[in-house]
């Protein structure tokens, strides 16, 4: 995969030189890079690997999912805040994840935590389960579990 990137950079450089301007300019380089992306995408199968930017797209997808969740659950928390009487029922539950490795675990944890209303309190020693504190277990545990699954999938698209 780094090879793809290097090739892309090489193309960009080439593009810059070909453009033959008075000065080396960053915008030309960017343009060259964009051109390179197209070229590399077309040819990535020759390298027998995934197109290196597909991870990038997955990442963007992950972000989008996340943003949706973020806004949704922010609404929930804010709702609790402005409600005249506080009547949610917090709780601490265990969630076993399919993700493995430091980066995956971390990413999922970050997402869980960024989602308002849920915090990872502990990670098990093996790193295969989280203890999550949810602000309102009663109402949103299921919703939370659902978004967790979505996150897991999205993360795996990026990392694997």
């Amino acid at each position: 995969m780094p090879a793809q990137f290097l090739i892309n950079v090489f193309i960009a450089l080439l593009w810059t030189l070909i453009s033959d301007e008075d000065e080396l300019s960053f915008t030309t380089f960017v343009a060259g890079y964009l051109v390179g992306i197209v070229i590399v995408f077309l040819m990535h199968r020759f390298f027998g690997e995934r197109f290196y930017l597909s991870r990038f797209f997955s990442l963007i997808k992950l972000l989008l999912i996340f943003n949706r969740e973020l806004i949704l659950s922010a609404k929930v928390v804010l709702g609790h805040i402005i409600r005249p009487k506080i009547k949610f029922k917090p709780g601490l539950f265990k969630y076993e994840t399919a993700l493995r490795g430091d980066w995956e675990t971390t990413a999922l944890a970050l997402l869980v935590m960024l989602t308002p209303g849920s915090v990872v309190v502990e990670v098990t020693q093996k790193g295969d389960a989280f203890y999550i504190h949810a602000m309102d277990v009663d109402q949103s545990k299921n919703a939370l579990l659902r978004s967790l699954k979505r996150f897991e999938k999205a993360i795996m698209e990026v990392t694997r």
Partner: protein
Amino acid sequence: MIKHRYRINNVILRTVAKLVSLIILTLAVYLFLAGHHSPGGGFVGGLVLASALVLLLIVFDIETVRKGIPVDFKKVAAFGALLSVGTGFGALIFGENFLSQAFDYFNLPFFGKTELTTVMIFEAGVALVVVGVVVTIILSISEDE
């Protein structure tokens, strides 16, 4: 010292800290270099650098950090001071007043018109002292039995 009978899985913190400290280090270098024209400079650069190390020390431990950065921070500080004071004495060689700084613009390949100044050396010294001292202090206390 503490015998760790229970273990904390610090994976989240450590993973993020690695990433974050990279960002901080980059920022530190940036601040150092940019200082002449925008906020920053030797002090801030050094301090930020030091704070990155502090973060690593908190999140990891002295042993790990020492392995990662095997330098004597006292010497780093001293070397920094030597640089700073050295530029002071350096001016004498050129028959200038003590601590006279010189700057000029040069055309360098790839960088274009670049300003090179002895203040850079001076400030590098400052930064090194700051890093060296902050880390020395924190390490000294933390390592005390």
